[in-house]
C-alpha cells in the first residue's frame, strides 16, 4: 500500500458516514457481510416454510396444510423448485460464501476492507435485486417456476409444458443476476486475499477458512460462465422462440444438463468448502491444538476443487448420454472421496490429545463433521453407476445431499455464527440456549433424514406430491409421516436459535476482544471491529494455529504476537 493510499485510508477512518452510507449503501465489508447474512436468514425462513408445506403434503396428501390450505400438484412442483433454488442460491451462497467471506477475509488477512469496496456494495445490491425478482416471481400470474431447481428443458423451455409463464422467466433472470453478483464477489475475494495481506501474512500463514473461501470463489468463477450462457439460451427458447433445447427445432435437451451440471456439481463444493473452512477454524480453538496437517489440507482442497470439474456427468448416468461415459465419471466421482477423506481424517486427528471444550460452536462443528461423514459415504452409492440405476431420482438421493449440504450450510453455518457472533455484534450468545438448539437440531435432523434413505430404497421417487397414489409406496406411508413430524420439530427447534440470536443481540454479555482465546487476526481488534478494522496494519509472525506450542502460561499465540517460541521457528 502506497503512502498516499494509506493517508487517504486514515482520513476516511475518521469520517463518520451518514445513515444511508453506514447502513444501506455501505461499502464497509462488515456491514455488507451483515446485509448478506440478514437476507440469507430471511430466505432460510422461506426455504424452511416450503419444506414444511411439502412434508405435510407428502405425509397427509390432499389435506389442508395448517396455516396454508390445500396444495395442488402444480403448486407442489413450485414448492419443490423454490425449495432447491432458495436453499442453494439464496441461503447457502449468501451465508457461507458472501457473509462469512466478506466478514472474515479482510479481518483475517489484516486488511482494512475488501480490495474493491464499491464493487462489493454493487455485488450485494445485485444480489438484493435478484432476491426481489425471485420474490416477485412467486406472485406473478401463472405461478412460480415449477420445472425443478435444475430446470430441465424441454419442460422448462416451453410455457405450455408447465403452464408457467413469467414465473419461470423471472426465475431465470434472478439466477443470472445472482450468478453475476457472486462473480463480482469472487473477483473481490481473490484480489483482496492476493494483494491486501498484511506484512508477514504469507499464503501458508492464511487461516484455512480463507483458503476455502478462495478455492470456492475460483471454482465458482470457472464453472458458472457456461451456465449463464445456458440460462440466456433457455430464456431465448422461452421468449424469442429459439430452439436451443427443443429437438423439434434441431435443439438438444441434454445440452442444458451438461451446462447445468458442469456448474451444478462444482457448486456443491462452492458450498461445502466454506462450511469446512468455518469448522476448521473452530476445531483447533476448542481443542487447543494446531490443526493437524495444515498444508496437506490446503493441497487436498485444491485437488478436490480441480476434480470437481470432471464429475458432473454422474448426475446423468441415465440421461441418455453414451453409457460408455458413465465409467470415467463414476471413477472420478468416487475418487473425489480421497481429498475429502484427508480433510476429515485431519479434523479427527486434531482432536487426538487435545483439550476439548464443548462450547456451542464446537458442538456444531462436531455435528458438521459427523453428519458430513454420513453424507460423504452415501455419496459412494450414488457415484457407483450401476447402483445409481436404481436409486437415481429416489429419496435416497434427497437424503444423501441433505446429509452433505445441511451439514455444511446449517451445522457449519450455526457453528460459524455462534463462534463469530461476539466479533460481529459485540455480544456473547447464550450458551445454554445454544446447546439446547444444537441437540434438538442434531436429533431431529437425523430423525428426518435417516428414515428418508429407507423410503428411497423402497423406491419412492423425488418430486411426486402424493406417494399414496402408488400402490407399491403405500407401505412406506407411516415412515413418511414419521419424517414429516420430525421435520416439523426440526423446523420448530430453529426458534430456539431465533430467540437466542435476538435476545443476545440486545441483552447478551458484552464481548471482549478475544473471548475464545484464538490466534487469528480478527480477535486482535475490538468486538465489533471499528470502521477500517485496524488502527495500525498488523504484522504477522506465525501461522494461525499455534496452540499449546510453548511453555508459557497461556496456551495460545496470536498471529501478530512478536514473541517467538520454539514452535514458531518451524514455519
Amino acid at each position: 500500500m502506497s503512502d498516499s493510499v494509506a493517508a487517504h485510508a486514515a482520513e476516511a477512518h475518521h469520517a463518520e458516514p451518514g445513515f444511508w452510507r453506514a447502513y444501506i449503501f455501505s461499502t464497509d465489508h462488515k456491514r455488507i457481510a451483515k446485509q448478506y447474512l440478514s437476507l440469507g436468514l430471511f430466505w432460510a425462513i422461506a426455504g424452511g416454510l416450503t419444506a414444511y408445506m411439502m412434508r405435510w403434503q407428502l405425509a397427509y396428501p390432499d389435506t389442508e396444510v395448517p396455516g396454508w390450505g390445500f396444495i395442488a400438484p402444480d403448486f407442489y412442483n413450485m414448492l419443490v423448485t423454490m425449495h432447491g433454488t432458495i436453499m442453494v442460491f439464496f441461503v447457502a451462497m449468501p451465508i457461507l460464501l458472501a457473509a462469512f467471506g466478506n466478514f472474515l477475509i479482510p479481518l483475517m488477512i489484516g486488511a482494512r476492507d475488501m480490495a474493491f469496496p464499491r464493487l462489493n456494495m454493487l455485488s450485494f445490491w445485485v444480489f438484493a435485486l435478484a432476491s426481489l425478482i425471485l420474490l416477485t416471481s412467486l406472485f406473478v400470474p401463472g405461478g412460480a417456476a415449477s420445472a425443478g431447481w435444475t430446470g430441465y428443458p424441454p419442460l422448462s423451455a416451453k410455457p405450455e409444458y408447465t403452464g408457467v409463464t413469467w414465473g419461470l422467466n423471472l426465475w431465470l433472470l434472478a439466477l443470472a443476476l445472482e450468478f453475476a453478483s457472486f462473480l463480482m464477489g469472487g473477483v473481490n475475494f481473490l484480489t483482496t486475499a492476493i494483494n491486501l495481506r498484511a506484512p508477514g501474512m504469507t499464503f501458508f500463514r492464511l487461516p484455512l477458512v480463507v483458503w476455502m473461501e478462495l478455492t470456492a470463489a475460483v471454482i465458482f468463477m470457472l464453472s458458472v460462465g457456461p451456465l449463464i450462457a445456458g440460462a440466456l439460451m433457455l430464456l431465448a427458447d422461452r421468449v424469442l422462440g429459439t430452439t436451443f433445447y427443443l429437438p423439434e427445432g434441431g435443439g438438444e435437451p441434454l445440452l442444458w444438463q451438461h451446462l447445468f451440471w458442469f456448474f451444478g456439481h462444482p457448486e456443491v463444493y462452492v458450498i461445502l468448502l466454506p462450511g469446512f473452512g468455518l469448522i476448521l477454524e473452530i476445531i483447533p480453538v476448542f481443542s487447543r491444538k494446531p490443526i493437524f496437517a495444515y498444508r496437506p489440507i490446503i493441497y487436498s482442497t485444491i485437488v478436490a476443487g480441480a476434480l470437481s470439474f470432471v464429475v458432473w456427468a454422474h448426475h446423468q448416468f441415465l440421461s441418455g448420454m453414451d453409457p460408455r461415459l458413465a465409467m470415467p465419471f463414476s471413477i472420478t466421482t468416487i475418487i473425489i472421496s480421497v481429498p475429502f477423506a484427508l480433510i476429515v481424517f485431519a479434523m479427527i486427528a486434531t482432536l487426538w490429545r487435545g483439550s476439548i471444550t464443548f462450547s456451542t460452536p464446537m458442538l456444531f462443528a462436531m455435528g458438521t463433521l459427523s453428519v458430513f461423514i454420513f453424507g460423504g459415504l452415501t455419496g459412494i452409492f450414488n457415484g457407483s453407476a450401476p447402483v445409481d440405476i436404481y436409486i437415481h431420482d429416489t429419496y435416497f438421493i434427497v437424503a444423501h445431499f441433505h446429509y452433505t449440504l445441511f451439514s455444511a450450510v446449517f451445522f457449519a453455518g450455526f457453528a460459524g455464527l455462534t463462534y463469530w457472533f461476539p466479533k460481529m455484534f459485540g455480544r456473547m450468545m447464550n450458551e445454554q440456549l445454544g446447546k439446547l438448539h444444537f441437540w434438538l437440531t442434531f436429533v431431529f435432523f437425523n430423525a428426518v433424514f435417516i428414515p428418508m434413505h429407507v423410503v428411497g430404497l423402497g423406491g419412492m421417487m423425488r418430486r411426486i406430491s402424493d406417494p399414496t397414489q402408488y400402490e407399491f409406496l403405500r407401505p412406506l406411508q407411516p415412515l413418511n409421516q414419521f419424517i414429516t413430524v420430525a421435520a416439523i420439530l426440526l423446523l420448530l427447534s430453529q426458534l430456539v436459535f431465533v430467540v437466542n440470536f435476538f435476545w443476545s443481540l440486545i441483552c447478551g454479555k458484552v464481548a471482549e476482544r478475544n473471548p475464545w482465546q484464538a490466534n487469528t487476526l480478527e480477535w486482535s481488534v475490538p468486538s465489533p471491529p471499528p470502521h477500517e478494522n485496524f488502527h495500525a496494519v498488523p504484522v504477522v509472525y506465525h501461522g494461525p494455529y499455534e496452540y499449546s506450542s510453548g511453555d508459557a502460561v497461556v496456551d495460545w499465540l496470536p498471529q501478530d504476537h512478536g514473541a517467538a517460541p520454539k514452535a514458531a521457528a518451524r514455519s
Partner: protein
Amino acid sequence: MAEIISGWFPENVSSFGGEIDALFRLILYVTGAWFILTEGLILFFLLRYRRREGRRAAYVAGDNLRQLAWILVPCLIVLLLDLWLDFRGAEVWAKIKGQVPPSDFHVQVTGKQFNWEILYPGPDKEFGTADDVLMENELHVPAGQVVRVILKSKDVIHSFFLPNLRLKQDAVPGRAITAWFNATKPGKYPLPCAELCGFGHTGMNGWLFAHSPEDYEQWVKQQWPSPQPSPSGRGRG
C-alpha cells in the same frame, strides 16, 4: 444382515437386479465399516480428551511425514477401496448398459404428459406397419425373456422406472434410447415416471405385466390382430 437389507428394496424380479443389490450391499459394508471407525474415533476422542484441569493439549501439528502417515495411510486405503468398488461397478454396468443382449421381443415406449404409450410391433414384428398395437400404460411381456425397450418421448423428459426390475432410463424427446430387462417371475409390477414432467407427474404410472409363456400366448391371441400372410393385412393402427 443381507436379509434386513433386501427388506428395504421392493422384490427383485430382474435377471440383473441381484447384481445391483449385491453391489449395494458391498458398498454398504465398506462404507459402514468406515462410518463406525470414523464416528467411533470422534466420539472416543471427544470423551477421552475433554478438557480437564491441569492437563495441556499436546502440540501435534502433523507437519512431518511420521505424523502424516496416520492420515495418509488411511487415505491410501480409501483410494484402493474406491478403485475396487469402481471396478466391481464397471463390470455390472457393462453387463446392464454396455450392450443389449439379443432379443426377439421388441417394444416401443413413448412418454408423453402424462402417460406411457406402449407400441407393440404386432405379428410381423416390425414397427410402423398396420398391425402395430398401441396401448396406454400397459406393458405386457413374456417372463423369462429379454425384452428390448425403445424409449422415446413426445414432449418433455420422462424416466422409465421399473423398481422391481431395478431398471431406470430417461426417455428424451428427439432420441430413441434402448433399454432392456428380463423379468424372472410372472406378475404385475409398477411402472412410474421418475423424472419431473409437469403438473401431472404424480400419478404418471403404468404397469408391467410379466406373463408366463401360456398366459402370454393367451394375451397375444386376444389383443393382437391375427397374423396375415401379406403386409397389406388389416389391423389396429
